[in-house]
């Protein structure tokens, strides 16, 4: 196994582990507080503003809102493949592989467009 594969494997594993722990912790808090209430997913209302973008989610999680912590975990999960792509660019750069730096760069732009720019 070469360095590239080792780093990418580690990033994926680490990202999923961090996400899983945050979701688990937030989930336990959420069920402690809201477990006895009734679920309401039958009609679509959409999430409140604070659970929809990166700034709002980080803010809600720092205030220790259970749903904010879960959402931060899910954000880490979405960021995991993105981190993998960023890492690939770095590795291709070290190998001076211009062609695949460009290809990977295009993929990264598309990912960031969806997560950061779309409103």
């Amino acid at each position: 196994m070469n360095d590239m594969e080792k780093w990418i494997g580690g990033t994926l594993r680490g990202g999923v582990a961090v996400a899983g722990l945050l979701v688990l912790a937030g989930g336990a808090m959420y069920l402690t507080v809201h477990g006895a209430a009734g679920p309401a997913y039958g009609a679509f209302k959409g999430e409140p503003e604070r659970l929809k973008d990166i700034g709002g989610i980080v803010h809600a999680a720092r205030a220790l809102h259970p749903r904010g912590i879960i959402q931060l975990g899910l954000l880490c999960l979405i960021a995991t493949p993105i981190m993998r792509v960023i890492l690939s660019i770095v590795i291709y750069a070290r190998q001076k592989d211009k062609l695949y730096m460009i290809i990977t760069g295009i993929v990264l732009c598309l990912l960031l467009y969806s997560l950061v720019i779309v409103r």
Partner: protein
Amino acid sequence: MNTLEFTLLIGLGSVLAGLVGVLTGLGGGVVIVPMLTLVFGVDIRYAIGASLVSVIATSSSAAATYIKEGYSNLRVGMFLEIATTLGALSGAFLALIISPRLIAVVFGLALLHSAYTSWQEPKEFRDNKHDPLSRRLRMDSSYPDSGGLQYYHVHNIPGGFLLMMVAGALSGLLGIGSGALKVIAMDRIMKIPFKVSTTTSNFMIGVTAAASAGIYLNRGYIDPGLAMPVMLGVLIGASTGSHFLMKSKTKSLRTLFGTVILVLAVEMIFNGIKGNFR
């Protein structure tokens, strides 16, 4: 039913989906949305958001394992991810404007295709000629086998690219990994060995799903309370399943799971046409 019971039941169902999805190689994502909508009465938009998140989790942890074994072709995967992310973005935008009824029907059709693949034997499609474009992109590679390293050539990149865009669009529209279609693009069209196709497809699923997940998050389709049991459940099921992967015979399980998917397909299409999804 209160939130605690609701969460535990969905978590249990998701463990099962993740387990069977890995054992059969069909992926658990395809049954999450039908389970949430048909059994638990969840709105299809929340269901798609939760399913998408679980797809990223299983794909990422499986890819971490596969990459060690040296089967995945990272160059092929990275190049085709341009196609799948482009497709995923258009699929997610499409999901915002078309009616849930139509999404349910398209979902049913995707399930029908998934059921069909479950009854088919994997076949090798090989071609030993050189392809100039794949040589320029340095995609030809090798993978370890019992008889040492097996070298292979990659073909018809434009054809594979187009089908990958369709796979990405379906993934973004329906919140599934669309692994079945990705494998077809690689092994049938691009003549990549089956083992390399399946592991590389797994690698691409996470990036594809992340592209549409961003849009779903920004539009409020990802609910933490619902995504939590789905993500944790599927992750537990899938990682348990991957330990048994090589030991058990999965043919009868594939046939059984294929039948379940077929029933769900009919249900989704029927309920979609009847207007039970709003």
